[in-house]
């Protein structure tokens, strides 16, 4: 199994599409983070109204958009298995390890691992984002006052120093509240993506089904039958994030975090299992 895992890791880092996917994650995180933070009118306050910059609630709002990365974790998981069919590399893969269940198990492990890496990358990006936002605010505070007035400039410096310390403290606090949920969520979502891929086999179909289900179907079901909605993968992943409960007025109904984790794991493994016994058992010609 160690050898299989080793080969699966190598498969990922020997093609550039993996790096592109990770790059896209960073770009999307930055776009969403800045977009939300800099949106005019304090819309990011949700039902709580306008939230002051640098407050704890403000950081929670900014960081909690980072869970969009789980969509890309789903894509990554799906690619890990459907890519083999797309490029017909299943033939050498199954020649080297004809026990297909073992191959899928190794892929489950690697999906989780790379999903976690993707989540970690997201949260590091979030940290950079937070520092940049704080620095921008401090800088914009400084400029209008800083016109060679000795005393007031020093005062301003102290004021902004205090502001900087206070806000970065908020930032660290909220970041550490959000990070575990996002990282676990991306890891589990990658498993879910792998399961979809194992069942559907076709790369485009698996990705489209995964995205449409997560972004459209779940939203509709969640709105009409919240009790069913909370058991669906997207909501289950949201449940992992402690912060989500306090965010946006807590409008959605969610499972406890461990319940969300279990649901996601069940989705991923059940789909992969089904896939192994249907698609993956079929002939490779």
């Amino acid at each position: 199994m160690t050898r299989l895992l080793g080969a699966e890791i190598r498969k990922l880092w020997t093609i550039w599409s993996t790096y592109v996917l990770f790059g896209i994650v960073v770009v999307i995180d930055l776009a969403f983070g800045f977009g939300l933070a800099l949106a005019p009118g304090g819309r990011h306050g949700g039902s709580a109204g306008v939230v002051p910059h640098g407050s704890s609630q403000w950081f929670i709002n900014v960081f909690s958009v980072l869970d969009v990365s789980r969509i890309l974790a789903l894509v990554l998981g799906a690619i890990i298995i459907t890519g083999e069919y797309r490029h017909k590399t299943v033939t050498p893969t199954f020649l080297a390890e004809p026990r297909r269940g073992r191959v899928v198990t190794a892929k489950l492990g690697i999906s989780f691992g790379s999903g976690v890496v993707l989540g970690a990358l997201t949260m590091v990006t979030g940290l950079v984002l937070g520092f940049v936002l704080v620095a921008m605010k401090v800088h914009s505070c400084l400029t209008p006052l800083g016109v060679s007035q000795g005393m007031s400039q020093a005062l301003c410096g102290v004021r902004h120093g205090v502001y900087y310390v206070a806000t970065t403290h908020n930032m660290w606090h909220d970041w550490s509240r959000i990070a575990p949920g996002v990282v676990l969520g991306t890891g589990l979502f990658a498993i879910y993506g792998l399961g979809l891929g194992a069942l559907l086999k076709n790369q485009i179909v698996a990705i489209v089904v995964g995205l449409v289900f997560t972004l459209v179907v779940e939203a509709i079901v969640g709105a009409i039958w919240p009790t069913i909605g909370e058991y669906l993968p997207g909501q289950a992943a949201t449940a992992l994030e402690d912060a989500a409960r306090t965010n946006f007025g807590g409008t959605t109904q969610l499972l406890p975090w461990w319940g969300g984790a279990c649901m996601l794991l069940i989705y991923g493994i059940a789909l992969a299992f089904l896939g192994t016994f249907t698609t993956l058992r079929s002939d490779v010609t």
Partner: protein
Amino acid sequence: MATIQARGLTKRFGGEVLAVDHLDFDAVPGGVTGFLGPNGAGKTTTLRMLLGLVTPTSGSVLIDGHRYRDLPNPTMRVGAVLEASGFHPARTARNHLKLTATVAGLPFRRVDECLDLVGLSEAADRSVGGFSMGMRQRLELARAMLGKPDVLVLDEPANGLDPQGIAWLRDFLRVYASEGASDRGGKRIVIVSSHLLSEAQLIVDDVIVLTGGRLAAQGRLQDLLAGSKRSVRVQTPDAERLVQALRAASLPAVVRDGYVVCDGATPQAVGPIMVENRIEVHEMVSSTESLESLFFALTGGEGMQVGHGVASTGDYRRFDDGPAASPSVGPIGGQA
């Protein structure tokens, strides 16, 4: 010593296409076994069943009594070069091989050795997407050779190879088959499917001929050819005398196109007669039936029908069209 046994091997695709139909065969070590048959005969399907990629509908094909998927580390026992095997276009040749080497627990030194063996060392760090067909075929062979397997299975390995490559492959397979697998004290099994009959004739010792998913013939090529027509052709200024001498020895000689032709004779029979009669010889050719004509005899009528020549107007016709009534265009043109 490795053995491969197929018993009652059957594969039906989607309930209707009977690709392989109750096939029994044995492949024996120590020589190259040719796996021959027309398009759609079931060669690829059979080889893929042997390799655990396709599940038989019924029957079995076993390597040393085991199914492929029950072999603990199959890379070390069986190497395979397959037609539709894939490569990730962005991955380099070296990394492609490292994947199999990793799963098999082989040192990466072996990857370099195999790349060198097939002449791809120079291209090792180029991505496979830019490889020519022949280069991909070589890379497949390198992958098959990673574990120094004592069973080597090749489906149309000559596809895309240049003449040097084909000649090299021929020698390689012959030597590889006759070498012992040192650690097992036995000889190796090499199975090659091919359409290039003249090429196959040069390398195969045994043949298994399939048509329509069934076994048409199996055995040593020599034996199969021995039962067929042979003849001796001699060029000599003394044609008349030779014909009389041969007829006196009750060999049916005739003069044809300036040569003395003696059907059903062997050089061993004709030679002494010429020496005895002190007949000057300029050329003597002994011909046996070729693998090609044997193949047509065995598979004739079955498989996909080929059109009977090209119409005099120069139009191409579909393989399976009857005689063309009006000018039509071949498979790709689609103007019919």
